[in-house]
């Protein structure tokens, strides 16, 4: 069945360089530097990436960073907690906008 998301497409990521190779080169170098060991470990960065992947709901990123987290030494408990962090922020972000709803309702209400 055809779908918008195909796992095989992840391998074609670099073909996006066609048309703007200089921009792809900059992106690749920057991306590599971002995930290198720094003030945060590679394992911590992979967990952050996994959480963000869930927040932005990118199936390619979820696939890639699940593998990356396992290969950096995280276990499923830790990865599940990272996903909960993403969910909590997403849920909290929705809920905190309820204040705007209240403000708007209060403004038009009597």
């Amino acid at each position, binding site marked *: 069945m055809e779908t918008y998301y195909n796992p095989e497409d992840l391998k074609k990521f670099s073909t996006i360089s066609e048309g703007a190779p200089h921009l792809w080169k900059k992106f690749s170098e920057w991306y590599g530097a971002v995930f290198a060991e720094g003030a945060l470990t590679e*394992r911590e960065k992979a967990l952050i990436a996994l959480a963000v992947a869930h927040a932005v709901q990118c199936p390619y990123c979820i696939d890639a960073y699940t*593998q990356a987290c*396992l*290969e950096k*030494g995280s*276990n499923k408990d830790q990865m599940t907690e990272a996903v909960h962090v993403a969910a909590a922020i997403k849920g909290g972000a929705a809920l905190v906008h309820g204040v705007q709803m209240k403000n708007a309702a209060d403004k038009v209400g009597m």
Partner: protein
Amino acid sequence: MTEAAREAAEARNPFERSLGESNLFPLMSESISVFQMNLGRVCNLSCRHCHVGAGPGRTEAMDASIVDECLRVIKRQRYPTLDITGGAPEMNANYRRLVETASSFGINIKTRTNLTILTKDGYTDLPEFFARNRVEVVASLPYFSSETTDRQRGGGVFASSIEALRALNSVGYGVEGSGLKLFLVYNPCGAFLPPPEKSIEADFRRELKKRHGVSFTGLFTITNMPVGRFLEFLNVSGNFIGYMERLKSSYNPEAAVNVMCRNTISVAWDGSLYDCDFNQMLGLKCGGPPDHIRDFDHERLSVRRIVTGAHCYGCTAGAGSSCAGAVAR
């Protein structure tokens, strides 16, 4: 490159092409410093990842005559390290005699253990036996939690392994200052590469001490090889192509330089000679020199050409993998 050379290169298996790109083709042995003996496929466990396919129902076991041939070679050549593996090598009838005799040669003896066997009737004295013979213990423990360990090795294995580790600690293994070395072996519980060795070792050290009061000398990470039961898992779970691509795309020339087969000879339960335990399970005997312990020829085996295949990517992926863990950064 000449046309003939190009055609020859294209005819090689993909791993040989990778070696060629690293100027390592053909892969040759450099010496023999590790004499590895696989005593057979009998084991009290049937782990899901086992490349040997070992288990309680297997009957292949090295007999006394092959053990004697091996001891003659070890005594003559004085190889620095004897590495004993299986199956569960402790279950071989000739195991204790092998260890005691080799110990008298003054060489380093490593024994690989699944730990759980040390808690079974008839084997509980082995920690003292190991200590008496100054044997280095290399113990399989895929993770510091029971859920992951038991999923790979069977129900109750983790609890039994902790019991064995405590017994080893109690005679001094893994205890600083004792001189008795206890190494743990981590392997991934699935189709992914192992994490950096030092990073996961720190996790094991912290968690095993905190949760179970267990200590150890060091930890090796080993990549799961696409051989035996792990290969079956890859095929059944639909992970084979993805895993092989992962191994291949992670080819590390530094790891290729340091692959264990270049300084190891692997003897099977029936006396056949192989470049490594994985080739042994694939039936890929040493090419060129005599391939049986009865005809052992140190000079020729020391400079033999290593038999390779696509499975060899398992030893060269990322930080590499060997019976002594990672081989590169």
